[in-house]
């Protein structure tokens, strides 16, 4: 579904990702873990074309997303092709990024109506279904600013799902939320993972969630994959010392967790 081939990303002289090669299969739920600054979020942003790839290729469903090789050269793909491929990808952001000038339902139907060309009626019906699914049926006419963080994030999830994405990118979706509502949002995502076959690429600090939802976990450090395993193996029996240190720090098992970073 997604193939990273020799992916490189640099911001000026600062190389964030280097020689990155991995594939995500259709229906995979891949969680990227690692210390901040390890390049996890950058990977999601590259797939969403929010950042420009500085080297290598990303393929989505076999098609080049940003650049392709033609006559031995790396050339950018047409904007039209990029747009067409991008429509198969949805993203939920840490800061929700709902449109404050629109109501909840307008947020959800905006892209289905104006990008996919659905009728307003059809899109609204679907939006109502999605709102029910995220437990916000009564908030269709509300404005985002009147909602709590958790409610806003649930709307953002509905908005992403309204586009029927084949790939869903979740970028630290609970990091900006109060601890007591994190569970609600994760519960919804768990439900989506169980009832759909959407391919998910997840960046999170919620290790329990990663364990429950994903079938693969990639440990990142310094822009490289240092370890890859199933969640059961990764969380109970990590091989790499860097992974052990990281998990020890975030999971907080044992009394000496504070300060081990």
């Amino acid at each position: 579904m997604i193939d990273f081939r020799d992916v490189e990303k640099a911001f000026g002289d600062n190389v964030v990702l280097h020689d990155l090669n991995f594939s995500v299969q259709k229906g995979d739920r891949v969680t990227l873990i690692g210390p901040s600054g390890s390049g996890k979020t950058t990977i999601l942003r590259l797939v969403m074309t929010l950042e420009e790839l500085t080297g290598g290729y990303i393929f989505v469903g076999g098609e080049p997303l940003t650049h392709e090789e033609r006559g031995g050269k790396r050339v950018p793909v047409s904007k039209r092709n990029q747009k067409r491929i991008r429509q198969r990808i949805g993203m939920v952001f840490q800061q929700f990024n709902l449109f404050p000038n629109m109501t909840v339902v307008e947020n959800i139907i905006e892209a289905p109506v104006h990008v996919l060309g659905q009728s307003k009626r059809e899109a609204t019906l679907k939006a109502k279904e999605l709102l029910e699914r995220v437990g916000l049926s009564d908030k269709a006419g509300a404005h985002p600013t009147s909602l709590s963080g958790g409610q806003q994030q649930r709307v953002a999830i509905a908005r992403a799902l309204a586009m029927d994405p084949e790939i869903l990118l979740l970028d630290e979706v609970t990091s900006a939320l109060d601890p007591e509502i994190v569970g609600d949002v994760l519960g919804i995502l768990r439900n989506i993972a169980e009832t759909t076959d959407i391919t998910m690429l997840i960046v999170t600090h919620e290790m329990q969630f990663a364990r429950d939802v994903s079938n693969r976990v990639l440990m990142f450090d310094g822009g490289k994959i240092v370890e890859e395993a199933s969640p059961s193996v990764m969380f109970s029996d990590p091989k790499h010392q860097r992974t052990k240190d990281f998990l020890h720090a975030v999971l907080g098992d044992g009394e000496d967790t504070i300060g081990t970073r």
Partner: protein
Amino acid sequence: MIGISAAFEWHWSAAAEVLPTLLTQFVKVTLLVTVLGTVIASILGLVIAMAIRVLPRPLSEAVKWIANVIRMTPIIIQLLFASYAFLSLDLITIGVIVYGIHYATYMSEVYRAGIDSVPKGQWEATTALSMSTLRTWTAIIIPQALRATIPALGNYAISMFKDTPYLLVIGVVDMVNAARIYGGDTYRYTEAFTLVGIIFLLASYPTSLLIGRLEKRLAYKT
């Protein structure tokens, strides 16, 4: 002495005599130039702000430079220049265009600040939803930018309103100058200028109320 003191007395007959002229000039010149000028300025200002943001570098720099030149030269000089450069146009049209363009350069700066105030995350959300550039601007960026800019835009409209007497330099008699001419002819300055002040106030006050209401309407409902 008698003549001078008479000038400071209030004569209802003089007030009644000058009022129709003042109102006519107010509608025909002051109001016309301000309303049409504001329409041009608010649209052109947005176009300039968007052009600077969207166009590739050398072009956007050129637009920025031209806007700066217009903003930094007095409107009187622009009025004179335009009246000699476009002899075939009637003077009111020249007035409307010059005021429109002059204030567009000011309003473009307001729009620019408004556009800059839209958080990066909003742009990213439009990308994530594959929204078109046009739709991104019209449905997301401009509505959010406007919310922050309405008060400043309204102030420029009022400021344009108060700048209309400068039209005299190209021979267009607005309400203020009509009052001055009447005063010069009759020594009844008091009546004429008092009425001018009242008319300005009666026109500006509802305008500021309107801007206030617009501001409230654009505020996000919480």
